[in-house]
């Protein structure tokens, strides 16, 4: 029988079998949504709770006794703080912040009237990230105002304002403005690699050791189909489902990130649709490598339980370099690019960072990963030929 025909028959059967397995389907199609959902919700949480903070951030500023320090109030209003009235009774002030009705209250005492030197109080809830983030923003504005006032007073007294701030720093940023959101975008390569290695694990176990455990392998191997074609058919099925899972994963990331950041201007915009399309394309060789590796490990094990243990650990291996590379990116030289996983991670990180595609790196990663996949696939086919595969022991 021709190879293509064999692959078609096995692919049809395995796909039908897999699509009817509710548990496996849930794992295949819900699992890839989890990481994007988590990252999206975290970003959304940061957004809605103003944890991000910024000098240009607009927010409400509940103040009690605003009339006592009009100059400070004018400064805060000019810097995006919308002053809102707050309770004047101490007991109500505390309960309003504690209940979360107000993120903080700035209390300006009557002693501030007519003087530049006074003490004010800010009531916060340290247990609430929202309260702390809002308070930090208003405190930053007050600190700057404080410095400006002290310099003005020193100058009025006939001294050099440099006495107060001897060194003034001006930053000139030549790169992109990065923020918290970008840290989340940088997680995509690792989570994507994890998904590539995790995606079709249960399907692979079911098609390999599962076949032996349910007693259907002998009948299958007694048919006039070569074992290499049988393995190829099963691998193509695993690859097909891995690619669907990765597609779902990336689509979910795209939607979740745009949803979480769409209403905020100060977040770095998430990667474009084109970047996500490139991420998918560049991960195809890694999917082939992952499937070959999964098949090899599955055929080395004696039982489905043993396969679950080893294949469950497999995604952690590529995750580790990925996590390291989030904080310590590796320059994608040709040698690094040709190493499976590393090569893709370097490319993924470049794409997420908005750098131009390194086509030489793409070439090396495709050639290196596909060569490694072929070697591992050959190993899997040798293992499949072993009598131990039929007998199980």
């Amino acid at each position: 029988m021709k190879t293509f025909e064999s692959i078609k028959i096995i692919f049809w059967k395995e796909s039908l079998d897999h699509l009817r397995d509710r548990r496996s389907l849930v794992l295949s199609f819900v699992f890839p949504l989890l990481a994007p959902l988590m990252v999206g919700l975290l970003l959304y949480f940061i957004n809605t709770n103003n944890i991000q903070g910024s000098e240009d951030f607009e927010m409400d500023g509940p103040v009690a006794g605003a009339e006592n320090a009009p100059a400070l109030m004018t400064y805060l209003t000019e810097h995006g703080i919308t002053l809102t009235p707050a309770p004047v009774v101490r007991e109500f002030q505390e309960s309003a912040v504690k209940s979360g009705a107000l993120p903080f209250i700035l209390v300006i005492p009557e002693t501030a009237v007519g003087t530049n030197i006074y003490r004010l109080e800010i009531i916060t809830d340290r247990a609430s990230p929202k309260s702390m983030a809002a308070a930090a923003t208003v405190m930053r504005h007050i600190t700057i105002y404080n410095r400006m006032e002290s310099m003005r007073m020193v100058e009025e007294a006939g001294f050099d304002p440099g006495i107060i701030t001897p060194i003034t720093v001006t930053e000139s940023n030549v790169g992109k403005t990065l923020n918290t959101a970008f840290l989340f975008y940088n997680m995509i390569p690792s989570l994507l690699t994890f998904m590539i290695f995790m995606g079709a694990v249960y399907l692979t176990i079911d098609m390999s050791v599962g076949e032996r455990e349910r007693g259907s392998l002998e009948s299958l191997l007694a048919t006039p189909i070569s074992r290499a074609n049988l393995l190829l058919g099963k691998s193509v099925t695993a690859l097909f489902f891995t690619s669907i899972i990765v597609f779902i994963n990336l689509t979910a990331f795209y939607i979740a990130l745009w949803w979480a950041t769409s209403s905020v201007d100060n977040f770095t915009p998430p990667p474009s649709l084109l970047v996500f399309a490139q991420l998918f394309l560049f991960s195809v060789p890694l999917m082939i490598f992952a499937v070959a590796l999964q098949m090899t490990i599955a055929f080395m094990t004696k039982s489905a339980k043993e396969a679950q243990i080893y294949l469950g650990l497999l995604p952690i291996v590529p995750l580790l370099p990925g996590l390291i590379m989030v904080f310590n990116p590796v320059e994608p030289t040709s040698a690094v690019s040709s190493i499976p996983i590393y090569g893709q991670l370097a490319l993924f990180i470049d794409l997420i960072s908005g750098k131009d595609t390194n086509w030489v790196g793409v070439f090396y990663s495709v050639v290196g990963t596909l060569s490694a996949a072929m070697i591992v696939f050959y190993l899997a086919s040798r293992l499949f030929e072993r009598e131990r595969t039929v007998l199980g022991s």
Partner: protein
Amino acid sequence: MIIVKDLEKHFGKVDAVKGFSFRAEDGKVTGIVGHNGAGKTTTFRCLAGLLKPDSGTILVDEWDVAKARIEVQNRIGVLPDAKGLYPRLTAREHIRYFAKLYGLDDEEIEAREQILIERLGMSGFADRRTKGFSRGQRLKVALAQALVHNPQNIIFDEPTNGLDITGVHSVHELILELKDLGNCILISSHIISEISKLCDHIVIMAEGKDVMCGTAEELKEKSGHGNLETLFLQATAASNLKVVG
């Protein structure tokens, strides 16, 4: 026709089959009888091309399984000891899957599917998923898989294992029907009465080799008291003694 000559198969230090020979003719039922662990299943696995013999020859319709595995597999139907099915596929889908693996075209598949479902009495459950099937129903599906390509040579490994009386009767009927059609039938069993009833030629296997063979009548004559069971026990005990000695 199946010819096995001086078959040997070892697993590490264990001699599973050592110098086993027999001949199974077309239009006859040949039975291999032996204790558990005598080497019957290993022999059948070698015959089906699942295991490679260490030495010896296996010919199926003059094709050597060591040199032409695919040709041999096209000529045999195998009902293995482990009759595992895919729980999420229907009985009909099992038949179609194996028909395709045996290279049948759509028309042939349609025809064979019809014949087998009717002959094996599967109409009532042909379109049900096999999860939860009774032992008898499972056996019927496994039989349909093995016979879907209409093979000349059919190997049944412990075909009635675990079946009720009705199931056993149906299998016996099927085996005799296939014999009448001129097929070469090879069955293994440790049930002497079954072998005695069905087989034209019986091979007693012990410790991986053939210790006695002939028709049921010939073997009864050899035993001197007309009891095959006693003969089987004597033959296998003698072999054990030789091995120990």
